[in-house]
C-alpha cells in the first residue's frame, strides 16, 4: 500500500472542519441507529461508522460545485457534501421535509442543491452514472469533477469494468473511490476477487491507481486531491482504493457482523478509529485544543438533536405524493 506523508503543517480551520464533519457523521448515525431501534426509521439502514475519514477527506479535496455519487451506504457522503442533517434525518423518518419528501429513504438520499447525485441501491449501478456525469461536464465545457464512492463488493460486477474502460477511453473527469472495508456483507474480499489489491485494476486501463489509508483523513484528502487535480486539468479518471473498515454490521439487520469476522478483528480495527486518530493528531500538532474538541462535540450533538426534532415535527407526505414525481410534467 502506498501511503502519503500528511501535509507538514495542520491548519486549525481545516482541522476543525474535518473533525466536525467526521463527528457529525458519527453522531448522526449513532442517533439514526437509536431511531431505527425505536421504529422511527424503517427498511434498511447501513451505517458508515468507521469509514468517516473517506467521505470527509475526499470531499475536502473538492470544490462545492463538484459532484458526488454513492451507494446505499451514503449518509456520510451526503453529509460531507454539505446537506442539511435535518433534511436527511427527515428523509430517514419518511417525512415531507426530507430531501426526497420521504420517498427515497436511507438508501436513496439525493440533494441537487449540493450536487449530490444520490444514493443507489443496486451494487455497481452508479459507477456508469458517475461516468455519465463526467461525460456531461466535459460536454458542457465545465471543469468540475465527479467523486464516485463504492464498496469492494462492487468490483466483481461487470459495470465496474465497463465504467473504468469508458472513463479511461473517453478521458472523463471521474475519481472512483473504492471504500475497501474488506467485506461485502459477509464475503471477505479474498473470497470475491482474484485480485484483492483493488487499486491495481487501474493499471490495465492505463489510468492511475492508488491505495490510501482510509482511516487517515489527511492522507485521503491528499490522495483524492491529486486525483481531482488530474481530473480537472487533464480530464482523466483515477481509481483510488481507500482501505477502511466498517465498525458495525452490514446493516441494522446484521448488527453484530460476527459470523464472518472475529470479535478480535473488529476490536483491533476499532483501535484505528479515524476520528480518534485525527483528534489525537490535532492535539499533538497543536491545531486544536481539548476545549476545541469539546466544543465540536457539543455543536455536533446539538445539530443532531435538532435534526431529530426537525424530523419528528415534519409531517408525513400527503397521499397524493404517491403519484407525484413518477413523471416530471
Amino acid at each position: 500500500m502506498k501511503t502519503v506523508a500528511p501535509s507538514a503543517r495542520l491548519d486549525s480551520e481545516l482541522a476543525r472542519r474535518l473533525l466536525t464533519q467526521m463527528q457529525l457523521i458519527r453522531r448522526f448515525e449513532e442517533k439514526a441507529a437509536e431511531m431505527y431501534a425505536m421504529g422511527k426509521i424503517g427498511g434498511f439502514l447501513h451505517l458508515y461508522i468507521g469509514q468517516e475519514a473517506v467521505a470527509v477527506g475526499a470531499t475536502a479535496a473538492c470544490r462545492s460545485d463538484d459532484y458526488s455519487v454513492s451507494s446505499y451506504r451514503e449518509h456520510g457522503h451526503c453529509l460531507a457534501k454539505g446537506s442539511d442533517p435535518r433534511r436527511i434525518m427527515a428523509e430517514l423518518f419518511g417525512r415531507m421535509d426530507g430531501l426526497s419528501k420521504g420517498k427515497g429513504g436511507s438508501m436513496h438520499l439525493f440533494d441537487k442543491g449540493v450536487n449530490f447525485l444520490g444514493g443507489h441501491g443496486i451494487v455497481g449501478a452508479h459507477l456508469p452514472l458517475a461516468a455519465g456525469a463526467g461525460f456531461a461536464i466535459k460536454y458542457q465545457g465545465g471543469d468540475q469533477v465527479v467523486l464516485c464512492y463504492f464498496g469492494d463488493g462492487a468490483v466483481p460486477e461487470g459495470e465496474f469494468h465497463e465504467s473504468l474502460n469508458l472513463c479511461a477511453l473517453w478521458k472523463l473527469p471521474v475519481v472512483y473511490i473504492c471504500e475497501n472495508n474488506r467485506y461485502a456483507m459477509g464475503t471477505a474480499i479474498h473470497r470475491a476477487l482474484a485480485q484483492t489489491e483493488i487499486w491495481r485494476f487501474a493499471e490495465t486501463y492505463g489510468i492511475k491507481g492508488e491505495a490510501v489509508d482510509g482511516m487517515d483523513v489527511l492522507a485521503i484528502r491528499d490522495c483524492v486531491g491529486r486525483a481531482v487535480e488530474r481530473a480537472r486539468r487533464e480530464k482523466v479518471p483515477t481509481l483510488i482504493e481507500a482501505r477502511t473498515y466498517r465498525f458495525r454490521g452490514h446493516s441494522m439487520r446484521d448488527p453484530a457482523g460476527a459470523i464472518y469476522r472475529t470479535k478480535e478483528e473488529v476490536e483491533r480495527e476499532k483501535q484505528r478509529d479515524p476520528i480518534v486518530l485525527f483528534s489525537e493528531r490535532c492535539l499533538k500538532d497543536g491545531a486544536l485544543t481539548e476545549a476545541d474538541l469539546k466544543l465540536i462535540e457539543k455543536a455536533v450533538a446539538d445539530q443532531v438533536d435538532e435534526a431529530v426534532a426537525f424530523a419528528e415535527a415534519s409531517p408525513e407526505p400527503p397521499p397524493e405524493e404517491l403519484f407525484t414525481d413518477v413523471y416530471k410534467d
Partner: protein
Amino acid sequence: MAVMTYREALNLALREEMRRDPRVFVMGEEVGLYDGAYKVTQGLLKEFGEKRIVDTPICESGFTGIGVGAAMLGLRPVVEMMTFNFSILALDQIVNSAAKMCYMSGGQYNVPLVVRGPGGPAAQLAAQHSQSMETYFYHVPGLKVVRPSTPGDAKGLLKSAIRDDNPVIFIESETLYAIKGEVPEDPEYLIPLGVAAVRREGTDVTVIAYMGMLYRALEVAEELDKDGISVEIVDPRTLRPMDTATILGSVRKTHRCVVIEAGAGFAGMGSEIAATIQEEAFDDLDAPVARVTGENAPMPYARNLELLKTPSKAKILAAIRRVCA
C-alpha cells in the same frame, strides 16, 4: 405432517433434494458462510460443504451464466438471488441463455436450473428493493414461474422445480418467510408445477391471489362471509404455465371474478388472467373481471405512502362488493 415456517420448508426441500441427487448444488451471494441473507440456506454449508454450497461474488450475470453452463453439462444448479430485484442484472442469461437454449439447440441442451429468492413488496425497502419481479419472467416462453404462498407449497413446489428439466423462476417472499404451516415430511412430497389450488371454497365470487395478497384476500373473505357473500379463492401457485382450467372452472361456478396483484397494475399478471377469463368464459360472467393491483408508481419509502401503494384490504373488499353488486 410437521408444522414449520416457510423458510424451514424451503430449507428442507433443498436438503432433501441435495441428499437425493448429487448433481444439485446451491450458488449465490451469502448462501454459505453467512447461511443465507434470509437464512433460507441455513446449515447447508455445514451439511454439504463448499463444493455444493457456493458463495459467489456480487456479479449476478456471471454466476447465473455459470449456473446455465453447468446445467448444460448435466448439473442441477439452484441459484439464489439475494433478492429478486437483482435478477434484472441476470436477465439476459435467464431470458436469452436459459430459456432459449433447449429451443435453439433443437432439444440437444436443456437447462435444469432453478433461480430462487425473495421478491415482491418488502417493508420500506423503497423503489429499487421492493419490486414484484415476476413480470419480467412470466411472459417468456421457455421459463416456468412459481410463486409459492404457503410453507407446504414452498416445499412441494421447490422440489418439483429442482427436478424439472427446464429453467424455473421461483420467487419467494421476505414477508412470508416466518409464517408457519403444515408441511408433509415425505421426501417424495411433490406439487406439480402448473396446478392451482383452491384455497377457500365459495359460490358468489372467485378471487385470484397469491403470496401476501392471498392472505389479505382470505381475511377479506371471512369478513364478507358475515355479509353473506361467499368467496372462493384460487391461488395459481405457478404463473407460467398458468392453470387456466381451475380458474375458469371456478369462474364458471361463481360468475364473478376479482384478480389481486401486488405489483403495478398496467400489463401485469392480473391483465393476463382477466383477458383470458373474458375470452374463455364471457357468457358465464355476470360482471367484468375486476383487478385490484399495486398503484402505478415506484415503491415509495415512507410508510404511509407504501401502504397506499399495495392493495389494501379495503380496496379488495370494495372491489369484491362492486362485482357482486
